[in-house]
């Protein structure tokens, strides 16, 4: 039963990742693109954790933690660059 639920969650987050990719490619404004990239990071974290559950391995939590940190920093840096034309003033 857990395997079925896991497959369902894999499908949901994979589909969400594709939707975000479509939004990154065809975004009406630049902040939309930042938002879509940030959502891709969130979906990727869920996929990595699910992959770790699937393989019953604790190795993937560090990977997802690092992914969350770099995703947050890159989103903020991109938004700051759009906002001020400079990242660290």
């Amino acid at each position: 039963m857990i395997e079925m639920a896991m497959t369902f969650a894999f499908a949901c987050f994979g589909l969400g990742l594709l939707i975000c990719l479509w939004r990154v490619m065809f975004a009406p404004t630049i902040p939309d693109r930042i938002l879509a990239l940030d959502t891709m990071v969130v979906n990727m974290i869920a996929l990595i954790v699910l992959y770790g559950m699937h393989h019953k391995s604790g190795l993937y939590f560090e990977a997802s933690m690092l992914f969350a940190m770099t995703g947050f920093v890159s989103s903020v840096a991109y938004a700051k660059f759009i906002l001020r034309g400079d990242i660290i003033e």
Partner: protein
Amino acid sequence: MIADILISVLLVIGGVFGLVGSYGLVKLPDLMTRLHAPTKASTLGVGGVLLASMGYALVNGGVSWHELLITLFLFLTAPITANFIAKAWMARHVTAADLPPTGGERTWATLDLSDLPMQPELTPPPPPGRPT
């Protein structure tokens, strides 16, 4: 058995919330409404998956606290990112005429491009020497 059902339900709820969050990104009309979908629904979806992962580790013998750390980090950073994206959007698509007055001499911080120092200015540094 009960633990299996609980973990499965958490996984399904997390998946549905994650999908709704991503779908809202294409469905909703403009950026300020689109911000709601990923910051709330997707974060909640990932939280559900991480809780399920915690439960799965508990069932297989062994407590794992890493997931709680990731959940906490995501819940802390999602509002900050959303605020920055909203500010970036405002800087490009909103003029001072669209916003209510600030009640001061300066305009909104997002739209303020002047190099004037902040008012009131900081207190001047004390003279050098030993403090009395």
